[in-house]
């Protein structure tokens, strides 16, 4: 699972902590099906109406789940992720930032062996307006997220939130928001997310929010060239100095690799329209949709085709 659907049953690891509690309540209020939580010290209890287990494996035995989401500090993230993977989770959403790279590689290795989809690390999670969300996004805020047919991919949670807000203000609803994470080694890449949205019947167009560093936007551009659905992009970091990590561990330009011009060139060569500022995205998207779906009712966010 990359796009959240309400039939997806969610396990919250670290459910009893301050953030775990806060965001679990938000997820539930939004419609997300949270079926169980993990905290070894509170096993057997119920927390905010959710049964708590000692491990993901014990939770799976009694209250099966599909998706695990981790509110776990960096030093314990590897063990928690491996627990969820071995328990049989189909998807593990890793919100934690600053997990040692060695542990991240061990998590990805186990995920490959067990065919588990990892989202993150260092992601804000995924939102499907009207269905629910998994992570730390304001999925419950209807000024920001409205159901619709535009899929949004973003490495950054804050910038992704801004982009969805702008879309909603322009009357454009979203089929899904896919936060993929700001780390250099993430389980679901920009390209993976783009493929998921291309295959999604509820998605008519895609907004790809990238940033400097790495080669994920270039890899996604290769796929975008084959797509019939329009793709509009914004890449953050054009004004950032080279050789510095811009907050995200992955956001660093070394030589030409990962630079703004390299990404913009690759995307434009693939037919992707690149916006200069976030507020231009909505207009560019509407132009693209009008060009490809002339009969679309643009005032109505739902269903262009």
């Amino acid at each position, binding site marked *: 699972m990359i796009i959240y659907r309400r039939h997806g049953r969610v396990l919250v690891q670290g459910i009893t902590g301050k*953030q775990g509690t806060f965001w679990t309540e938000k997820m539930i209020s939004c419609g997300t099906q949270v079926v169980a939580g993990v905290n070894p010290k509170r096993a057997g209890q119920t927390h905010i109406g959710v049964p708590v287990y000692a491990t993901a494996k014990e939770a799976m035995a009694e209250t099966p789940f599909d998706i695990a989401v981790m509110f776990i500090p*960096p*030093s314990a993230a590897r063990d928690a992720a491996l627990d969820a993977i071995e328990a049989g989770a189909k998807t593990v959403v890793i*919100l934690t*930032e*600053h*997990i*040692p*790279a*060695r542990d991240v*590689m*061990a998590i*990805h*290795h186990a995920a490959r*062996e067990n065919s588990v989809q990892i989202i993150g690390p260092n992601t*804000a999670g995924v939102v499907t307006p009207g269905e629910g969300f998994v992570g*730390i*996004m*304001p999925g419950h*805020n209807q*000024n*920001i997220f409205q159901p619709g047919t535009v899929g949004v991919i*973003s*490495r*950054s*949670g*804050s*910038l*992704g*939130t*801004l982009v969805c*807000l702008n879309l909603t203000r322009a009357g454009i609803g979203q089929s899904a928001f896919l936060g993929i994470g*700001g780390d*250099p*080694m993430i*389980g679901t890449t920009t390209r993976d997310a783009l493929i998921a949205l291309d295959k999604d019947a509820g998605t008519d167009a895609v907004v790809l*929010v990238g*940033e*400097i560093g*790495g*080669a994920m936007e270039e890899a996604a551009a290769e796929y975008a060239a084959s797509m019939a659905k329009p793709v509009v992009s*914004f890449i*953050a*970091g*054009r*004004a*950032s*100095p080279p050789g*510095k990590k*811009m*907050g*995200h*561990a*992955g*956001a660093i330009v070394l*030589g030409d690799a990962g630079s703004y011009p390299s990404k913009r060139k690759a995307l434009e060569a693939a037919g992707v329209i690149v916006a*200069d*500022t*976030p*507020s231009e995205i909505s207009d560019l998207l509407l132009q693209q949709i009008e060009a490809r779906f002339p009969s679309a009712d643009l005032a109505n966010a739902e269903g262009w085709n």
Partner: protein
Amino acid sequence: MNFVEHVAKERALAPAGVPVPRGILCKTPEAAAEAFEKLGPCMVKAQAPTGKRGKAGGIKPAFSAKEAHDLAAAILGMTIDGHLVGSVLLEERAGIAREFYAVVLNDAKSKSPLVLFSTEGGMDIEEAAATRPDALKHWSVDLAQGFGVAEARAMTEGLDLSGADDQIAQILAALYQISSALDAELIEINPLALLTDGRVVALDCKLTLDDSAAFRQGDLSAAAAPETMSVLEQDGYDSGLKFIQLDGNVGVLANGAGLTMTTMDVISHFGGRPANFLEIGGEAYTKSETALRLVLANPGVKSLVVNFCGAFARTDVMAEGVVAAWRKLKPSVPVFFSIHGTGEDDAVRIVREGLGIEPFDFMEDAVKAAVGAAQ
């Protein structure tokens, strides 16, 4: 975090059994003259965590004690690539037959450790890869299998190593062990030299540790080379904030790396120049007071954009911090807000009531106003 050559050799290579030349670390020209007496003809090498030492004149051969003294005197105190040279490493000179290249790094594409080896050492590896791709071998490590002598032999198969195959396989396996044990992001030996007497030794070593793993690397992080940071950047670092000082005049305070970079981009798009990168997202979102103090302490700042879009970070908590700090610091520069996301209704009210300022509806408008005010 990065390490200078002698720390990398002493703390990483030598304990793992990777041969290094005999060397003595010197902090004064007198010590260098003394070291020469013990080593004989040697190299005098600036200890700075950068690959630009040779080009900057920081690595020179010495053939007498006086020469070692004078070279040390010239090199100590140099600034190379922003790093002040506080010590020189004197290393015995040996006859070099061939130079190889070896590295273990974390590869983002395969999400696995990657071992690279080239028979074309001593030069820039990108250049070597471009001119002699046949000389470069890759091995993506399967974490379950690991990387030992057998894998190293399989990796270098087909290369002519002048009979040093076993020594090189041992060294490659040791490098992988080091990278796992020390949480190295990168450990590189360039050149890895085959000497005329048949020994293979690491003439240089570059080591970068994963900052996120510092908590489990004991006292090793204390031996890291200091970062080149401005006073304000150091201040931010000490407060747990990522602050990068730039040369513009529009201060930036935003949450999240992506939104902060975007705020800088939009400033530049409207003809302004950002004065800083400062991220207060993630766990740091409660630190807006410290953040504001840092942004305003930058002497170039003529106006300020506060751009919050709360996902994880609660904008009401951040706004409260900014308003409290604003009242305390009483800055004279104009400030322009844009606030959306988690906690936005409370945050807008806090700014309106606390400072009498109405946030802009679009970040672009807040930025435009700030760029105009800075001119």
